[in-house]
């Protein structure tokens, strides 16, 4: 297989297992480019990528921007406060405007689930979801799979514990189906108040005690506690959360020696992950950031390359 089966990447449902493996294998080649002195390829010269970020983000936007620029595409960033959306323009009109400017790919982040879907429906451009509300964040899941495969050497059969605010996390929303598609076994771990009502619908096993399931995990994926929503947090205190659900040196000692720790960032040190663990060789947090650029390059290359513009191949 040489091409993706989809024009857009809005949720993990858009991707088949073959698509996922093609993206990871292609990302391997781009990872090599990112180690070179000259980290730039001419591949997407003349293509325009718009990063439409209608919700604050630094790392995801930067990662997409670097990925586009390393492929020689022109990357344009539009943020919420700078765009016409604050002047009351509808998402549909924003889409029509961008479409009229003939851009080739739009990466969209939006506070509402389904916004990428609306964009894709009203324009010809490829759409990649850069995170929509509490729904999905597929490129994060892809870079996580890439990081796990690099560290563990495989994906199939691994047990991955996802710890934290499962019910509000778009990271978990994409990672759980992604893990299932590649034959890994996701376990969601959280206080009952942060678990969705039906974790079985999500397709993951659920647990409320980290210490109970810890010895069986190959990977511990710590989700961020959203401090900006600290008021009305569904647990008594951050200290208590850290005590029962945080990754620290004692828990690391109780886990399998090859188990490693992941975090989508930005980290709340001392809450989800202790500083000691975050800076230890068993944390792959920076590998995840590094993989982000290569994986997003692969996604852009596979979506934009090989398009037939009526030219004979």
């Amino acid at each position, binding site marked *: 297989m040489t091409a993706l089966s989809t024009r857009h990447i809005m949720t993990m449902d858009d991707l088949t297992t073959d698509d996922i493996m093609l993206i990871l294998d292609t990302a391997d*080649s781009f990872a090599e480019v990112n180690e070179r002195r000259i980290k730039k390829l001419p591949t997407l010269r003349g293509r325009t990528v718009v990063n439409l970020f209608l919700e604050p983000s630094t790392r995801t936007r930067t990662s997409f921007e670097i990925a586009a620029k390393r*492929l020689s595409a022109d990357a344009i960033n539009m943020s919420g406060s700078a765009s016409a959306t604050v002047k009351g323009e509808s998402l549909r009109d924003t889409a029509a405007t961008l479409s009229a400017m003939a851009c080739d790919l739009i990466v969209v982040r939006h506070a509402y689930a389904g916004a990428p879907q609306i964009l894709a429906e009203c324009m010809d451009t490829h759409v990649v979801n850069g995170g929509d509300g509490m729904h999905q964040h597929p490129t994060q899941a892809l870079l996580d799979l890439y990081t796990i495969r690099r560290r563990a050497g495989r994906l199939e059969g691994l047990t991955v514990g996802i710890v934290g605010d499962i019910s509000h996390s778009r990271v978990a929303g994409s990672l759980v189906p992604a893990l299932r598609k590649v034959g890994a076994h996701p376990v969601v771990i959280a206080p009952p108040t942060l678990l969705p009502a039906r974790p079985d619908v999500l397709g993951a096993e659920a647990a409320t005690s980290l210490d109970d399931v810890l010895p069986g995990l190959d990977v511990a994926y710590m989700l961020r506690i959203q401090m900006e929503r600290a008021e009305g947090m569904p647990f008594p205190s951050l200290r208590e959360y850290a005590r029962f659900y945080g990754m620290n040196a004692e828990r690391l000692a109780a886990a399998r020696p090859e188990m490693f720790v992941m975090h989508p960032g930005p980290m709340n040190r001392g809450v989800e992950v202790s500083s000691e663990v975050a800076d230890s060789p068993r944390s792959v947090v920076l590998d995840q950031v590094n993989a982000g650029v290569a994986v997003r390059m692969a996604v852009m290359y596979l979506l934009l390359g090989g398009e037939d513009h009526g030219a004979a191949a």
Partner: protein
Amino acid sequence: MAYRTKAVVMDGPAIDRALTRIAHEILEANSGSGALALVGIVTRGTVVATRLAERIERIEGSPVPVGTLDISFYRDDVAMRLSPEVHRTDIPFDVEERTIVLVDDVLYTGRTIRAAMDAIMDYGRPRSIQLAVLVDRGHRELPIRADYVGKNVPTARKERVTVMLSDVDGANSVDIQEEVDSE
């Protein structure tokens, strides 16, 4: 579209003799293998480069570094088609101030070589780049020529040149194939 073999232009021993001659020519033109490195273009260029390196080592008594280059991301037709399979590029030496001999199996339009030169330049600034090919079949679309040629094979554009090398294909030969009407 179906193809049938029109002529076998090189067999195994002929390929061996051509490579031995090219190895000598490379050494003669560069006064030895001192600052030399070979870079094969995947897949069959890498095989040819490895075979040339073996011969150069046998003649000179010291090994010459071999790299492998995937030019998928440098092609000028990315918009039209994706490469069937992307391989890893591996240049295990510093290209700075070296004489790089690019190696491919067939030289045709020259576009692959143009892409390969761009790719090499991204690793540094070699002193010079030379080109060795097993077969030159003509029909250049760019001002590119080979420094070392195994065999010049005049062809029609509609014909295909198939290089088989035992490491990849299980046999050694260079064939010209022509289109046949498939009924």
